């Protein structure tokens, strides 16, 4: 079975430590939840190659990927912001995902994926000429175009309003297809809405993924503390 395996992972910076040791099957929909500062983003950045590991390995389909440069790992990542180059057009921003030199780009494929995310005909615009929601769609479109088997979402829709955000999550769910999606969120509703499994990050550990429903029905103390006493279960 193809899976993303996090093996004895250890990340340290100053007095911050995060450990994780588990695996996720290909094609899953996984939320990463926990208090702020616990290391949710750090975990995703480590998988993506922007945070050095102090120990452990990361494997995809049995092959070690934590030694690869960020751009050569079998994944796409959407950051909280700065997902598009402001000086390139939307189409170029997408095409750069296929060929960083923008020389061998299948521009028809770019147009097709723009259609799929609802940005038909906007390829010639610059990011600043798009609304916030449209910018998110463009960034997502590039991830779809790259068609890597893992998609990491580091709260890319956090700046959108609630309605737009859930619209984007629906779009991800609809379009991500066979990709394994890991999504950082601090909103339990997002997790329940989107993810069948959830990883809780708290107290220096990224816990083993659990069924999202189970986790929220019987929250461990760290999650209960994060959610607060009034959280309706």
């Amino acid at each position, binding site marked *: 079975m193809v899976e993303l395996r996090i093996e004895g992972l250890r990340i340290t910076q100053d007095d911050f430590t995060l450990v994780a040791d588990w695996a996720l099957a290909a094609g899953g929909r996984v939320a990463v939840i926990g208090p702020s500062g616990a290391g949710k983003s750090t975990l995703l950045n480590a998988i*993506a*190659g*922007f945070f050095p590991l102090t120990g452990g390995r990361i494997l995809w389909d049995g092959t070690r990927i934590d030694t690869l*440069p*960020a*751009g*050569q790992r079998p994944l*796409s*990542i959407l*950051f909280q912001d*700065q*997902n598009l*180059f*402001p*000086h*390139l057009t939307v189409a*170029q921003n997408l095409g*750069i*995902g296929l060929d*960083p*030199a*923008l020389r061998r780009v299948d521009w028809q494929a770019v147009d097709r994926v723009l259609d799929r995310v609802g940005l038909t005909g906007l390829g010639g615009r*610059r*990011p*600043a000429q798009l609304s916030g929601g449209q910018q998110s769609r463009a960034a997502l479109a590039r991830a779809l175009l790259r068609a890597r088997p893992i998609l990491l979402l580091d709260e890319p829709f956090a700046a959108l309003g609630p309605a737009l955000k859930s619209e984007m999550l629906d779009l991800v769910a609809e379009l991500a297809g066979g990709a394994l999606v890991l999504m950082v969120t601090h909103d339990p509703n997002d997790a329940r809405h989107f993810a069948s499994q959830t990883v809780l990050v708290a107290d220096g550990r990224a816990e083993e993924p659990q069924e999202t429903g189970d986790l929220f029905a019987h929250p461990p103390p760290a999650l209960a503390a994060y959610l607060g006493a009034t959280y309706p279960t």
Partner: protein
Amino acid sequence: MARRAGALIAAGLAALTLVPVAVVMMQAGGRGVSAPDLAALRFTLVQAALSALASVACAVPLARALARRRFPGRAVLIVMLGAPFLLPVIVAVLGLLAVFGRAGVFNSALRGIGLPEVSIFGLGGVVLAHVFLNMPLATRMLLQGWQAIPAERVRLAESLGFGPRDHWCHIERPMLRAVLPGALLAIFAICLTSFAVVLVLGGGPSATTVELAIWQAIRFEFDLPRAASLAVLQVLACGMAVGVAGLFTSASGFGAGLDRAMDLPAPGGWRRGVDAAVIAMAVLFLAAPMLAVLQRGVPGLLSLPASIWSAALASLIVALLAAPMAVGAALALALGRAQGSRWLEPMAMLPMAGSQLVLGTGLFLIAFPFIAPPRIALPITVLVTAVMALPFAYRILAPQARSLQADYGRLAASLDLRGWAALRLLIIPRLRRPLGFALGLCAALAAGDLGVVALFATEDGVTLPLAISRLMGAYRMTQAAGAALVLVALAFGLFWICDRWGHGGTAD
């Protein structure tokens, strides 16, 4: 890639700056320091210290007046304060001679009211010229200090009913205490290696700097060991000044903004009159020499010797080669630094610790046994000018490279955008403005520079600044002024074209 390219460039730069110095040191070997050498060192330090103090002393009231007054033409005036940095030094000296020389307006006025004449030659003239060249830079650095006073603090001061005196005690004085040391040291370091000013206005046993003494030792006495031991003195002085200045690095003053969110209080009464007088005097002091060159130069344009045009071509070639070299190397260093190679920053500043004539002496000593120095005058000039301009380009590019890396570094890495593709699609488009500005600045500096070329050139390989200084030496002042206009047009034209290119990108 940038880190590797940066490391390579840093290694090359280190070789280019340190090998000549090492050669100089070996050559200086046994020879001690003579009394004239020490006199030159003393004069160098004294004139640099006085120049720094005088420039800053003039800049404080000017920057303050500009910071708190609003008047038509203020924005233009602040932009124009950047101009003396681009102005070829030899042209500035020519203008100052026209105003403050024996036959100048200033001395005529003194004679008119029965006062004794003042001489522009010697220590006074050297300091005057350095103030002319550096006071605008100091003003822009201090102006940034004033503009960086947070609006909240200004509002607080107003709500507490501060008068101008309280404002000075609690807001302006602490700001100046933070900004002044950096400005003083920057100008001190610049004046230590000043050559063209001292070449014309200094000289003689009482007014010779180390830089000038090196030139004399090579050109007139052909005393290479003496040149070498002088060069060692110069390296020690510059190295110490740059080291100390590094502790006080502050805003460069090149890109000072024009406006702030909240206006500073503009007290009325006599203070208003004083501010107006300060601004008027500064404009007069800075504009008069330029106007004098213009007035003398226009007739001179008609009688320019043909050699001026070949010298202008040589200067153009030097600028077109040296500027991209300096900016390209500075870009690689700035990008490497932005990606985490901290050690590249002191490497980029390394040329500041040397001087044109020190590098020139080293290269002269290396080349002399193998090839006639005049034959390599232009290549050496290109190389040395590029090396000396590099720190300026680095200072302009480094902050922008850092924010480029912070904003788009991860995105570029996640898309595997690197190497030439990154240069073409990310770096040049995003850094176009500072790149254009740095290119323009380096091109203007290279075109207007009179330094190492004076060591090497005879009849061949003469650049325009050198040709002008020779015309001045022959008292052909009208022709010199005409050639100076050509040089000014060349330097400012190059700057303008490059800076335009920088602004030509698409707005985002």
